[in-house]
């Protein structure tokens, strides 16, 4: 028991070690990797993953999951582009509306999960079709080319993805700002406490007077908002609004959360862990590319990280591989 507890405290530390090792290895393969501006600019690539993962942490702590967020990224991007170009909204009004759409998507997910009682996995599988479908319908009606998307955004908007402040790229600032918000919300407020308690034992939380349905609903709204912000960011960064922006992001997002130490069955997790894991994944993407590997290797790397991280975590509990082996060993040594 004590060992397990120590282990939990050491998870964040192991992530730091993993991160440093990763930087050293990639730096050794390609010294250019170690240049500070390369590292800083690499944030552009993983910040979208992090924006979703930070808030996905809340959802997974309550014991849920949301696999529709890739679709929400695309939908918010399309909604924004459409409102701006086709309906003549101001660019910032369009951005605001797109974020609102993301929050509503999350709210619908949360409603299905918390109030109707559909399994989170199934509900968000359905909505992932639905949201991606709505993007396609919007594009279909407006006659935008799906391949190119909407382009030609004003410079003020492009600054979200390309701006700099005090020598730091906007992506870093956005990333850190969101991480701080998520950290305070989860670890320093009564709301975050309620999220944890709901995830550890929903029935006991109900008996403690916590309205768990509202808590679960709100976590889905948070991640929906996060995904919409990610959609806006990527639209700005790539200067194009497209439906398929988030198509393959969900694997990275869930890997970041789980690698960060959040238990997939709920109840425990930390923003610092998700924060570090997002960087690890981001740098791995960059490092593999700089090492001359084709981009497809990233998927293998992320998949391996996910499986290995969860295997290690599951192996720490009772009634699993390690304790099975231990028992077997003890039996034989008798």
């Amino acid at each position, binding site marked *: 028991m004590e060992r397990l507890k120590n282990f939990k405290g050491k998870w964040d530390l192991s992530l730091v070690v993993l991160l440093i090792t990763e930087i050293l290895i990639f730096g050794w393969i390609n010294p250019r990797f170690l240049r500070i501006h390369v590292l800083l600019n690499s944030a552009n690539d993983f910040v979208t993953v992090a924006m979703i993962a930070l808030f996905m942490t809340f959802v997974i702590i309550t014991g849920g999951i949301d696999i529709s967020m890739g679709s929400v990224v695309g939908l918010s991007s399309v909604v924004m582009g459409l409102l701006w170009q086709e309906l003549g909204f101001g660019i910032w009004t369009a951005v605001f509306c797109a974020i609102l759409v993301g929050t509503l998507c999350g709210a619908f997910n949360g409603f299905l999960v918390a109030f109707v009682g*559909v399994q989170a996995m199934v509900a968000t599988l*359905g*909505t992932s079709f639905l949201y991606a479908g*709505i993007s*396609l319908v919007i594009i279909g009606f407006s006659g935008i080319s799906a391949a190119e998307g909407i382009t030609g955004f004003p410079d003020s908007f492009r600054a979200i993805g390309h701006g700099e402040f005090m020598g730091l790229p906007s992506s870093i600032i956005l990333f850190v700002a969101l991480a701080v918000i998520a950290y305070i919300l989860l670890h320093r407020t009564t709301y975050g406490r309620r999220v944890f308690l709901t995830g550890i034992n929903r029935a006991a939380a109900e008996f403690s007077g916590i309205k768990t349905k509202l808590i679960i609903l709100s976590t889905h709204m948070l991640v929906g908002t996060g995904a919409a912000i990610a959609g806006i960011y990527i639209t700005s960064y790539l200067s194009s609004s497209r439906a398929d922006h988030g198509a393959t992001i969900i694997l990275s997002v869930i890997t970041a959360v789980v690698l960060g130490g959040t238990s997939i069955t709920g109840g425990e997790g930390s923003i610092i862990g998700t924060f570090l894991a997002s960087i690890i994944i981001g740098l791995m993407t960059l490092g593999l590319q700089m090492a001359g590997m084709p981009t497809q*290797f990233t998927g*293998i790397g*992320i998949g391996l990280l996910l499986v290995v991280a*969860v295997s290690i975590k599951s192996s720490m509990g009772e009634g699993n591989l390690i304790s099975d082996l231990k028992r077997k060993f003890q039996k034989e040594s008798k």
Partner: protein
Amino acid sequence: MIAIKKLAKMREMTALIFLVLLFVGVGLRNPDFMNAQSISTVLKGSVMYILLAIGMTFVLLTGGIDISVGATLGMAAAVAGTMIRDGSSVVAAMVVAIVIGIVIGLINGFGVAIVKVPSIIMTLGVMGITRGVMVVYTGGRWIENLPDSFKLASQVKILGGLNVYFLIVMIFAALVQLYFMKARSGRYFAAIGDNLEGARLVGISAKKVMIAAYVISGICAGIAGVVFASQVGFVTSNTGVDIEMIAIAACVLGGVSLSGGLGSVTGSCIGAVIMTAINSALIYLKVPSFWNKSIQGMLLIVIVVSDVLIHRYLEEQARKRRLSARTSVLGGAE
């Protein structure tokens, strides 16, 4: 009340009625949809989904989920396609495709049953890895120029216009259904999903059964990969993307419970045909194809939500009846 109960019991039936209504309803608007050719196209198109749904049913019955089938399908299609293009026999390619399925299934099964990684995470990770390996294998290039004989095999019709692949798959499905109903071990899959503890108590080796489920799912996906290569005639690096979602949706439509223990292969197969028929129906209704995804998503949500609500209603009624029976002194006055 009784009607609802029956409905819940006969999920395959509701799925079938829905399918018939779909054909009749769309047929009223456009009689062409009801003719033999259109129906044959739908059945032919559903072969791949039926295969995946059969495999998925095994996994879902045990209470797990297999997200990696799309990637397995892609991998098998790529390897088998390459072999056939380079002159190997179809049989050899099929064997290799099946072996790929077995290997991936074993990895999934090991992770889920032995290491106790949650199935969604394990198979999500394996999906990422498999996709990466596939693209590395193909170098990102399409596999084209498959021999005509191989492509034409998918068009062969026998028994008065029935597609030969569809016929074979139907026979396969019937055998699997028979296995579930008659064989001793056929019930084991549903048993461990229904009540894991109870299954152990009657001496079922839950680990073996679980691993078997993932292996079967892998094999089905492997075969589906060869079917894909034959039907489509080329293999892109995107082959199989999102297909797992359709397979899961098909099972859910056909009445397989995602919490395990409930469902049948017959239902899944009908669900798979429905998923294909919707796409086809939209064409006949002259609805632009960009509606497909949102309609599939909406349908999935509606079915799952009504399923959950009906079941919760029935359970609540049963609970109330049970509790009320206790309060009458003689017991069972109702």
